[in-house]
């Protein structure tokens, strides 16, 4: 039986990639979606270890790549920790480089803004489709 992938030993300078997606143009939403707070019933926001292209990130997360849709942005372990977040390696078989970002307390709008501010400008996604 294949073992669960090993945890990654995260260094402060480790680059992390967050996958995001643009909506089709008919929705009128020009900006790509990047999650800045956990989903309902979840405790963490997901990112990926490494500086991945939009193609690499989309294949890991969604098992397909759509050029106009798929977008990435980057931060580091240190940036997130400096902003008060816990960063843990939480691999799954399909996403061995999965990283959980958690916050010890309520993930308020202020916390979401602090999380968002850790990332640089998004790359990828053509926009304007549909």
């Amino acid at each position: 039986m294949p073992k669960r992938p090993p945890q990654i030993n995260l260094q402060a300078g480790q680059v992390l990639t967050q996958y995001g997606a643009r909506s089709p143009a008919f929705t009128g939403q020009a900006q790509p979606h990047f999650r800045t707070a956990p989903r309902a019933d979840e405790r963490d926001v997901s990112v990926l270890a490494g500086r991945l292209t939009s193609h690499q990130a989309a294949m890991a997360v969604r098992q397909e790549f759509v050029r106009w849709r798929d977008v990435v942005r980057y931060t580091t372990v240190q940036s997130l920790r400096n902003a008060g977040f816990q960063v843990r390696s939480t691999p799954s078989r399909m996403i061995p480089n999965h990283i959980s970002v958690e916050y010890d307390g309520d993930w308020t709008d202020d916390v979401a803004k602090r999380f968002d501010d850790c990332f640089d400008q998004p790359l990828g996604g053509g926009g304007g489709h549909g």
Partner: protein
Amino acid sequence: MADQIAIQDGARPWKPSGGSELVETYGYYDQPTLGLIRQAGLPYVFRCVDLVDDHYSVWAYALIEDREVARLSDAEDLQLALAEVTAGKPFTVALAHEEAGIFEWWFIGELEGSPSILDSEAIRRALLPIVTELRNRLTHVREHVVEELAH
């Protein structure tokens, strides 16, 4: 019919009914996105096929056999194994809202080309006429309600 997984309105996609259990999460990104459920003792692979936006998502479920569960457990290449064990299987396709859970679902007995659960394009193609029909029904109801209110 066991091919069709039982779904309860408002259920989380990875626990689609009270009697189902999330056995293994193969992929997790902000939520379980790919994994194995057991319901009434039967194993189903589930996958998040699409994120429509931040709030709406499309999910697919395929019944597999216990020997195929073992194949998935042993697989070095899980993606290949998932493609092989779900190819040509009937799917249940569900729409979910992030907070409200699953709110619509359909059984798709036969898909052209025997796609696997990893073939998002084929599942979208199968879903399109169903969603279009739903939209047309709702449009009909809306027109009826508007007309009634106008009298």
